[in-house]
């Protein structure tokens, strides 16, 4: 498919997924604050930090932060901006997505700009965020049932799961930023409640208890959200799904990553196979998560270089580029990729 179109597919689903996850983060924070007393400056600021926002105008109080992350069009990752960008990407590739997908996405874009949305936001914040979550879920469901599962679909999957992997890591990182009153509180009801809230925000409460019956929340929750092989929001599962999509696109078996996108994915998935949650804790959960997030960004860059920024003078599709490939293999053999990914 056309590289530019592939890029729009990828970003459309990333933005939708981002809107959903921003709603999840806002909701979990809201819930946490209902139960516990948290110093004012620690209540909402962490959400800005994990979103990489350092320049929000005004004080980071509840309403300002929620407003900024939900409605502010000057904030490119606000829910409103994400939906706008998703819809704009979709508009450009309307000939690629199904009519049903477009119609629903357009409907919710209009809804977001209607008084109905702002009323719901004022009246029932939690229901508002639920509704935002449902937008992505609905459009994902519609696309699953109405679009050919060809290359465009695989780019949707790639975008959706790459974004989700990143967002799950971010949500988990909230825990780092919400400090316990004292170290003695580790393992106490306050601490456990934090973990449960994070689990819930990822829709992981019940799956967690089925997978790990009787396990105390705590580090086990982090383990679950990072390493669980079948939970659809765990970092590992998301990255494996990306890998499957990338290989469906390249047409290569999983054992042959072939291009840069495939290789960077394989490295991170392989690394997650080798490490354990204890390694993360030892390195510092925040530090380990930051490294994972950076590596996910690097995968995004690799996908862009492999599929979107295609120069005009590639050899025809029938013969894959052997020269550059062998160079890359050389690099891999000399460990260049290892150092890159470890940074």
């Amino acid at each position, binding site marked *: 498919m056309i590289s530019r179109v592939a890029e729009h597919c990828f970003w459309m689903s990333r933005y939708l997924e981002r809107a959903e996850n921003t709603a999840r983060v806002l909701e979990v924070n809201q819930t946490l604050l209902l139960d516990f007393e948290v110093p004012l400056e620690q209540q909402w600021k962490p959400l800005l930090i994990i979103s990489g926002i350092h320049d929000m105008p005004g004080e980071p109080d509840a309403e300002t932060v929620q407003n900024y992350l939900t409605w502010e069009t000057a904030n490119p990752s606000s829910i409103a901006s994400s939906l706008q960008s998703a819809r704009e990407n979709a*508009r450009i590739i*309307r000939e690629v997505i199904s009519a049903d997908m477009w119609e629903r996405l357009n409907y919710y874009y209009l809804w977001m700009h209607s008084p109905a949305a702002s009323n719901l936001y004022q009246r029932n914040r939690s229901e508002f965020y639920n509704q935002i979550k449902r937008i992505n879920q609905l459009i994902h469901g519609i696309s699953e049932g109405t679009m050919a599962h060809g290359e465009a679909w695989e780019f949707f999957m790639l975008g959706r799961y790459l974004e989700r992997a990143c967002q799950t890591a971010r949500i988990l990182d909230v825990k780092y930023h919400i400090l316990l009153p004292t170290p003695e509180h580790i393992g106490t009801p306050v601490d456990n409640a934090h973990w449960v809230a994070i689990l819930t925000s990822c829709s992981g409460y019940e799956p967690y208890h089925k997978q790990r019956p009787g396990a105390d929340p705590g580090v086990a929750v982090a383990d679950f959200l990072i390493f669980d092989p079948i939970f659809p929001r765990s970092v590992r599962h998301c990255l494996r799904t990306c890998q499957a999509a990338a290989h469906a696109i390249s047409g290569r078996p999983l054992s042959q990553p072939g291009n840069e996108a495939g290789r960077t994915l394989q490295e991170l998935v392989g690394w997650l196979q080798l490490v354990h949650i204890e390694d993360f804790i030892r390195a510092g959960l925040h530090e380990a998560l930051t490294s994972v997030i950076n590596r996910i960004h690097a995968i995004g860059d690799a996908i862009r270089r492999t599929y979107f920024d295609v120069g005009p003078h590639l050899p025809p599709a029938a013969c894959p580029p052997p020269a550059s490939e062998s160079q890359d293999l050389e690099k891999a053999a000399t460990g260049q990729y290892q150092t890159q990914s470890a940074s």
Partner: protein
Amino acid sequence: MVRHSGQPETVTTAGERQIGLDGRLFANYQPHATAWDELFLAPGRPHDHCRPLVDPLGQLLVEEFQQRRASADLAFVNQGITFSVYADRRGVEKIFPFDLIPRPVAGTEWKVLELGLLQRIQALNLFLHDLYHEQRILKEGVIPEGLVVRSKAYRPEMIGFNPPGRQYLHVVGTDLVRDTNGRFLVLEDNGRTPSGVSYVLENRMVMKKVFPQLFQHCRVRRVEDYPHRLREALCSVAPAAAGDPPCLVLLSPGPYNSAYFEHSFLARHLGIELVLGQDLFVDDDKVFLKTTHGPQRVDVIYRRIDDDFLDPKVFRSDSLLGVPDLIRAYRAGNVTLANAVGTGVADDKAIYPFVEDMIRFYLSEEAILKNVPTYICARPDDRAYVLDHLDQLVVKAVNESGGYGMLMGPFASAQERAEFSEKIQANPRNYIGQPIVTLSACPTWTEEGLAPRHVDLRPYIVSGKSVWVLPGGLTRTALVKGSLVVNSSQGGGSKDTWVMENGR
């Protein structure tokens, strides 16, 4: 007309309560004093071919009609059937206002229109071939040479070049109007990149949803074959060495173009890729598409970009929309462009007055469809007449479209007329004058209930190895009382056009 309410469920018809919701739809309808009415011969008396439409529709209460209107509006809003207006970020997209009362054309009358259009396209196509080869028509003095070669749309680059199948005009939208006697006249030919056909198809889709039972009453000829016919035509003019099936793409200027919705609509319905200039490149005089799996050869480009922007190396060098070396590849015969390059000269408004002569010259026939009488300001006598009668004529710039660069004499101020007078004298080649045709009118929903509003008709003609006319076309309607300007860029709306198979 269309309320762009944020939440579609809340689309209301408030503000129209004073009309009386319990009356029958046509009860108070008064046809226009002078214009031909498309539905009624006289108040309460429909044309014969309109009875199958007017009878059931007339049973509707205004309130029921309003409900259907709300559901049609909702369908348009949700589907994002819009055109872009170059304004601020929030309000970029507008809905093309749609009126629910169809505009019928009798089946027998349509047959004549169809023949007239086929004849016209054939002559225009022969004219283009002649113009870029022997130029017989100029040498024999039928059309003044100066008028042609000074046309901004004339492309000397095309001289001696044979497009596949000698076909220049793959898609034409011819604007027709009906005068006060009910006679169809050609207002202009659009042979560059005519737009609007997606609205024909969408309007029909919505009408079928909103008034399914009406279609059972009035056997209406189908418009839904258009994408299939266009695809067939494009395949039939692929270069000889093209793949089987040939690779077709639609080249669009991009999402910020006002017709992007249509480009995407057509790509979707033709099952072809929508591409921007940046997606294509030329290597060894062949055109390739940049894909995730490397370059893919392109055979036919249905381009919705004007000549000027196609190839920065040949035409406007500042164009970012085009593809460098595209014209080289075209001239090498490795890719087909539809429409061909240089067709704009055939719809130049200063050449338009000669189309009837072309028909005589190339086909030895009389034109079935007549032109509106036209004064060519390049001719001294005509110019003098136009300058003397500015208060009675419509004056048009020859190379403009979309209702831009136009003076409606009787409605203009003395100052506006004086300005145009200066413009005409400064550059006479650039202007033509025509008597004002009182366009026919059709019942249209307005703030005051059903009222006559002026309409035109743009049928679409698709040509490849064979030629096909879409039965119907886009009926554009002025929404402002008394206005004769129907262009969407000037606030016009549209209607579904029904060619009635059972009508006489």
